[in-house]
Every structure is written in structure tokens, then in C-alpha cells.
């Protein structure tokens, strides 16, 4: 029992130490994350190669590396890259956003879909498309539909946060209020669709299903930069978040100003989900399932941020590839993310139960 001055040999995690920099070394988690990233990149390249003018994987890789032929360069960089890149960016944003909300609420049900962000963006978008007034048209003309939807998602997300606030944020309360607000937003959306002109409804529906079709470089560039900036903020704050997996009181005892850290990270999660929705429409299920799949593959007790982003990217680019190639009819990517992600999570859960 005596602590003593002698070195005690005890099994603690090994570390990587270089000068003043040190990290815990978890080979399995690191390996799985690298493999997921490689898989996401592979699917990204395959997705670029597929189309009316098929291009093989070596030529895709050569073109990305800047050593391709001129024809390939035009098809890949100008035509197909925006769509593929949008899939990657939206997948990462949704995966990280889901990992953050699930960690903050300490509940796997808390995804941006449940917290009202997606439905709020949808309601605003449908309102702007179906409203025949001059003001709505002016808004769409000046800031664009995506930006307006983003604002709607953010507004709804913040509304849920403030309604859930009662001397701190309780995970279950956050989810209940999120579910309620989502229901209201969906009712508003349905009401708008039922009462609107039929041509507007078709346009609104096209936005609501979530798709990567017809992305332009301009849209993708905005989403990419927003996501990179947000990920930088998240990675700075993530270290302070670590003790918060044990609850507010333990975190406070370990010297974390938990209210500030949580507010920053929740805002980042809401913004990431908002960026994803404005880039690809409300793609369902990725933010819910990606962190849970990442946790189980990487064998982490809490949603791992990087691996969640990689699973999100893999799921979204993979689903888009399947939606475009394997199915007889062209489906919106959101249908496929749910169809692939859901059963895979169920499989992981069932396998864990049997172990």
C-alpha cells in the first residue's frame, strides 16, 4: 500500500513522447482510423471514376496528383470532383457533429437530426421555395437558398439549446425538447407543402430528400472552408472536453470550465450540421450512426471524433456510389445512407450482445 519512492511497475497506457509533446498510444484506434480514412479516399476515387465516361482508378489517382491527361482533367476536376468532394466534406461534418452532440448529451440518440437542426433548415427552405411573396424571393436572390436554410438550422438548434437550459444542460431534456421542436418544424413543412402550388412543391421536395447532384465548385468551396475552420476549433476544444464524459461535477473537479467548453462545442456541432445541410440537403442518419459505428470499430468507450468523421465520409461517399451505380433507379443519397447504416449498426449491436 505504501506509495514509496521506488518505481512501481503498473499497467498504464503506453505513450508517444517527443520533446514536450506527448500522447497516449492506442495502436488499435489509430490503425482503424487510418484504415477508415484510406477506405473513404478509395471510395472517393472510385466515385470520381464512375459515370457515362468511365475512368480507371490509376488515371483518377494520376489526375488528382496533377499528372493526368487533359481530357481526364476536365472530366475529373471540373465535372466530377465537386460532387465527390461534397460527399466527403458533408460526411465528415455530419460524423463529427454527431459525435459531439452524442458526447455532450451523453446519449447516443442525440444527433443533429433529433436536435432540430435538420428539420429547422428544411422548414425554412420549404417556406422560401413555396412562399410567393416578394420578401421570400428577395431573400433567396440575395443570400441563396442554402445560406437561408443554414440560418434556419442554426436558429432552431440554438432555440433547442436555450429551451433545454436549466442551470446546465441535461442530456435527456435536450433530446426531449429537440424531438418536440423537430415535430413542430416537420408539421410546418408538411403544412407548407400541402397548401403550396404544385410546381413549388416539386422544387421543395427535391431539396428535402438530400442529394449531391449538381454541386458547383463555388458551393463546395464554401462548405469545405467552413468545415475546415470548424474542425480546427473542435480539435482545440476537444482536449478540454475529455473529462466531461464523466459528467459536469467530475469535469469541474478536474479543472474544466465545462459550461464554456460545452457551449463552444455544441455551437460547432450545430454549425457543422448546418453546413452539411446547406451543402447536401437533410441527409438522414449519418450523424446518428457514424459515431456509434466508429466507437465499436475503434473500440472506444466514447465517440471518437476523427474516426466518426471518417465513418461519416465513407458512409456518404459509399452510399452515393451505390445510389448511382448499383441500383436500377437513381435514388437520393439519403435513402441509401439509412439503408446501409441502419443494418450495419444493428449488426454491430447484435454481435456485441452475443460476445
Amino acid at each position, binding site marked *: *500500500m*505504501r*506509495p*514509496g*519512492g521506488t*518505481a*512501481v*511497475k*503498473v*499497467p*498504464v*497506457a503506453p*505513450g*508517444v*513522447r517527443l520533446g*514536450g*509533446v*506527448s*500522447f*497516449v498510444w492506442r495502436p488499435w484506434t489509430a490503425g482503424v482510423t487510418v484504415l477508415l480514412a484510406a477506405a473513404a479516399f478509395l471510395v472517393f476515387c472510385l466515385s470520381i471514376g464512375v459515370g457515362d465516361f468511365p475512368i480507371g482508378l490509376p488515371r483518377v489517382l494520376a489526375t488528382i496528383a496533377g499528372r493526368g491527361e487533359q481530357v481526364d482533367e476536365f472530366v475529373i476536376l471540373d465535372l466530377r470532383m465537386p460532387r465527390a468532394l461534397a460527399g466527403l466534406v458533408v460526411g465528415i461534418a455530419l460524423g463529427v457533429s454527431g459525435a459531439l452532440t452524442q458526447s455532450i448529451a*451523453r446519449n447516443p440518440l442525440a444527433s443533429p437530426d433529433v436536435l432540430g437542426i435538420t428539420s429547422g433548415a428544411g422548414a425554412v427552405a420549404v417556406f422560401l421555395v413555396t412562399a410567393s411573396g416578394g420578401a421570400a424571393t428577395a431573400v433567396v436572390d440575395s443570400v441563396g437558398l442554402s445560406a437561408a436554410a443554414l440560418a434556419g438550422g442554426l436558429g432552431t438548434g440554438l432555440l433547442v439549446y436555450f429551451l433545454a437550459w436549466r442551470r446546465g444542460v441535461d442530456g435527456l431534456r435536450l433530446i426531449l425538447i429537440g424531438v418536440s421542436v423537430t415535430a413542430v418544424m416537420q408539421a410546418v413543412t408538411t403544412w407548407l407543402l400541402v397548401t403550396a402550388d404544385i410546381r413549388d412543391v416539386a422544387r421543395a421536395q427535391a431539396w428535402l430528400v438530400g442529394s449531391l447532384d449538381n454541386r458547383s465548385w463555388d458551393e463546395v468551396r464554401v462548405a469545405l472552408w467552413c468545415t475546415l475552420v470548424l474542425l480546427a476549433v473542435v480539435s*482545440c476544444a476537444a*482536449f478540454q472536453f*475529455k*473529462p466531461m*464524459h*464523466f*459528467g459536469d*461535477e*467530475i469535469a*469541474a*473537479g*478536474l*479543472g*474544466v*470550465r465545462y459550461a464554456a467548453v460545452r457551449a463552444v462545442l455544441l455551437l460547432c456541432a450545430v454549425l457543422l450540421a448546418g453546413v452539411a445541410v446547406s451543402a447536401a440537403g437533410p441527409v438522414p442518419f449519418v450523424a446518428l450512426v457514424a459515431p456509434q459505428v466508429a466507437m465499436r470499430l475503434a473500440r472506444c*468507450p*466514447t465517440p471518437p471524433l476523427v474516426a466518426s468523421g471518417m465513418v461519416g465520409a465513407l458512409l456518404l461517399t459509399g452510399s452515393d456510389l451505390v445510389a448511382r451505380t448499383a441500383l436500377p433507379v437513381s435514388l437520393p443519397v439519403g435513402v441509401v445512407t439509412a439503408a446501409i447504416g441502419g443494418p450495419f449498426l444493428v449488426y454491430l449491436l447484435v454481435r456485441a450482445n452475443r460476445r
Partner: protein
Amino acid sequence: MAVESITGAVPAAGGSARLSARGVAVGYGARPVIDGLDVAIPPGVVTTIIGPNGCGKSTLLRTLSRLLKPTSGTVVLDGEDIAGLRTRDVAKKLGLLPQAPVAPEGLTVSDLVARGRHPHQSWLRQWSSDDAAVVGRALAMTGVADLADRPVDSLSGGQRQRVWISMTLAQGTDLLLLDEPTTYLDLAHAIDVLDLVDDLHESGCTVVMVLHDLNLATRYSDNLVVMRDGAILAQGHPREVITAELLHEAFGLRAKVIDDPVGDRPLIVPIGRAHVELDPVSAELAQ
């Protein structure tokens, strides 16, 4: 006995209080739970706060640990106003274990205890060799080194509580605040955890805890703080403080205080209505 804290540093010398509250008032919302309370925690001993439900025991502990901000008055930690210190610096001096903490499912013991190093870490310096050494010692001191690779949720309640105490020790502090460390534990596990607290006390730690069981509080502490209605009723060594009169005043409990047959502390025998056979003299005393 050589006094040595977990980091190998010699604890602050002198007989002055490590932690004290001066005229603190605390409340949730408008309702004051504690109003104008003074208390000093002596160094190197186990202090236990006892009192009836809702008397403000946990509130006092949470105020001393800076989890709650007093509406008036100050809490002084090692001579400094705790409100003026950085949260991180408080965490390096004072370890806090709240009631019934919960770890994420599947988290291993060594990862949980390693989290105790957080106040000493930074974004770039997340796992130094110092960290590993202190965590190793914290695991060994609390007797959970053999469980290091096990998930926390697979352990018994008593082992789990040892692990959490190990985490607060890994903070590198010799001042521990434990809020009802024996809640939900059966008597054998409660004794096990309190024996650990006594070991820590022997190695130089100052411990402040809230306990419900009066006999365990009497057996394991050198300093009792008895509270009622947000105020301190009595304070001192259990042999001086624990009397039948005080128990009646604090808890409204009829009890007989006898000599502990296995120790040198008083033993409280509660008197209820069922199965009690008292001779007339004792019955009168117990009134």
C-alpha cells in the same frame, strides 16, 4: 511515520487550516441552504460532516470545493481566496469526488484514473512520463493496479469507488473531498472504502467527507462537523462530540452512546420502538 504525498512533495507544514469557510451563505435560487457559516478543515486528519437529510452537508462540501459559488463570504484554500484562483489551479490542490459518479460503459480502470492527470496536461502534452508514473502510483496506492485493464462497469461497487478515489489521487493532491463515498455500498464494501480513506490519511492526506452512517463516521474520523439546518451544531473529536443529547438535538434521534467494544471510539446504539428492552435508568437517560 514518513509523510509523503503522491507526487513525492512534502505537504504544506504547519497547524493552520488547509481549507476554511468564512461567513459563507449559499443557496439554490432564492432559498438559502447555508447562511453565515464558519468552518476550518485541520490539515492531515479525516474530517467528516454529518447531519440529518437536507441540512446542507453536501452543499457545504460543494461550496468548499468551489462547485457552488457562495452568495456571500469566502472559501480560503491554502491561504488564498478560492474564488480568485484558476479552475485548473484549484484542481491541482484539491481532489473532489461527487456522489455516485458514472463512467462511460467499457472505459478501463487505467484510462479512468489517467483522466485525473487532466489539470496537469495540455493540448500538446497529453501523456508525459510524469503522468504515467503518478497514475501508476495512484493505482497501486488504492489497490486497483491488478484491475487496470478491466472495464470500470464490470467491477463491484466497492472496487469502483476505489477506482474513482484513485482518479482524484492522480490529480496529485493531498486534499480530498468525498461526497458520500459509501452510498449504495453494502457494509463490507463501505468498510473497505473507508479503510482506504484511512490508508490515505496515514500517508499524509487531508480528507473531508460526507457520511450518512454515524458509527462509521465516528470510527473513521478524527474531526466531526455536526450540522443542522445549514448551521454547525458541534465540531471536534468524536469522543467529545458524540453524546446522546447531541444526537437528539441534531437528528431528533433517541440513542444510547456506549464504548465501542472493538475500538476506542463511542458507539451509537439507536433506540426505536421495536424489540427494545431498556432498564428504567437507561430508558430515562435515553429520553
